[in-house]
């Protein structure tokens, strides 16, 4: 006979740990949600999933024309590969954080009808992002090849920067979701903040063009600097990142993830009280 589930509303345990247990129990749901996001996004388009690869390529072409010819940025290897690798890392971050927030606020009707772990939407957004950045490796490697960027063994370390970026994005996604449940216009504010944040991160320009003083601040305070750099180490520079990049990246990723997870899970009981 199957064990009887017992639910007692006064038993709360430690919310962040309880949530981990529930996520493991509902892991299939999280994969199903990610699958739904990936398959429905392009379901009615002719090119289908190819758009995950074409979209950043299109951006790359525009930015290459705008910046490498007009501003004449100097990068270590080809500029198109530089900007494409930066964009992929940045898009992963901006899309997953936005999606975890939007899914919770606008798709949250489900949370009012049936119990599912509240972190499901954010986790599904991260998995969707991982699938997309995986697919995007194909055009990135093609551009690397065509523009003479050496492809080295460091490529094998590709999952490490992606994992750190995912941990950071999950933490930020959960934090802003918590706010967005109370004030839906946080979604709009975040979009503006993202734009500013992107310009403070060496995504489309080489970090070398920043004046010395600004560069020091960007490097110290902007976690995305480290994640973009580590990602590029694997797929663009072709060398292992130095410890002074790896250690802050791990630190930012872990601390953000823990804060986001704890804040979200402690607050999530109140979510269903918000109509």
């Amino acid at each position: 006979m199957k064990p009887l589930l017992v639910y007692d509303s006064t038993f709360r345990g430690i919310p962040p740990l309880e949530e981990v247990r529930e996520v493991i129990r509902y892991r299939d749901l999280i994969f199903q949600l990610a699958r739904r996001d990936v398959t429905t996004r392009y379901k009615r388009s002719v090119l289908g999933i190819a758009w995950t690869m074409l979209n950043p390529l299109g951006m790359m072409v525009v930015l290459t024309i705008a910046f490498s010819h007009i501003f004449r940025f100097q990068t270590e290897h080809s500029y198109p590969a530089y900007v494409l690798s930066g964009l992929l890392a940045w898009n992963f971050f901006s899309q997953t954080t936005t999606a975890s927030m939007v899914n919770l606020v606008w798709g949250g009707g489900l949370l009012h009808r049936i119990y599912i772990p509240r972190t499901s939407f954010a986790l599904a957004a991260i998995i969707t992002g991982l699938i997309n950045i995986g697919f995007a490796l194909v055009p990135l490697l093609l551009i690397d090849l065509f523009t003479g960027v050496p492809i080295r063994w460091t490529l094998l370390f590709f999952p490490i920067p992606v994992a750190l970026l995912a941990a950071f994005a999950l933490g930020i996604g959960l934090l802003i979701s918590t706010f967005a449940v109370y004030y839906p216009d946080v979604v709009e504010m975040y979009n503006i903040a993202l734009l500013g944040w992107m310009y403070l991160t060496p995504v489309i320009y080489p970090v070398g063009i920043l004046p010395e003083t600004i560069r020091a601040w960007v490097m110290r305070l902007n976690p995305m600097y480290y994640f973009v750099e580590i990602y590029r180490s694997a797929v663009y520079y072709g060398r292992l990142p130095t410890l002074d990049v790896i250690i802050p990246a791990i630190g930012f990723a872990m601390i953000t993830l823990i804060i986001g997870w704890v804040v979200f899970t402690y607050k999530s009981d109140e979510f269903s009280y918000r109509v």
Partner: protein
Amino acid sequence: MNRSMIPEFAVILENVSVRYRIPAERYGTFKEFAIRWLQRRVRTQSFWALHRVSFEVYRGEVFGIIGANGAGKSTLLKVISRVMRPTEGRVRVYGRVVPLLELGAGFHPELTGRENIFLNGAILGFTRREMEAKFQRIVEFSELQDFIDAPLRTYSSGMWARLGFAVAIDTEPDILILDEILSVGDEAFQRKCVARIEELHQHGVTILLVTHNTELVASMCSRAAWLDHGRLQLVGEAAVVAQAYRESQFTGIPQVT
């Protein structure tokens, strides 16, 4: 688990209260809230959607919950189905609860019937493997064999509801929550649903039936609870509770204390 260890109750509610806080004025946005907060003008009112509700539901019975709109029935279901934790009091639920509140909640119009069955199953807490075992039965019950690989946007609303019902009913719940659902599909399908619900009941499933329909309560339930403005008016034998509720509807005054 030993048979004798199975509790006699399916649901125990002790002094369950839910208080919603609503801002005295509506703050739709963070900007508005920030301005009001700076002016120290944030005021909230609270209202009790449920107030000190206590009753038990026995294992294996069909239990009715009646009350007018806004009586707190939906909030009560949320509290039992774990969507919401009560502000005060204690809820204990023994067994897996499957709410049939909104059939096909979580269905996606662009996905096929097949994909939606798996998605909805996962929402109800089943693994992919468990759903694979149920899949054939679900499709047969829904009678949608010919459309199962078509996207749901091509379904009629009746077909949509049938698929939702078929998934939810196949979940082998210990406690099934039915919220005004016996109005879906055509009459033949409704009869099939009622038959299936009775079959589940015979297999020992506890059923919570939420409705305004006092006749349905009197005919299907053994016991019932009547809620009014978040307070429990009466709990007891279904026919008695249904009768008291019906009378109150004519006089407009709740007369039972």
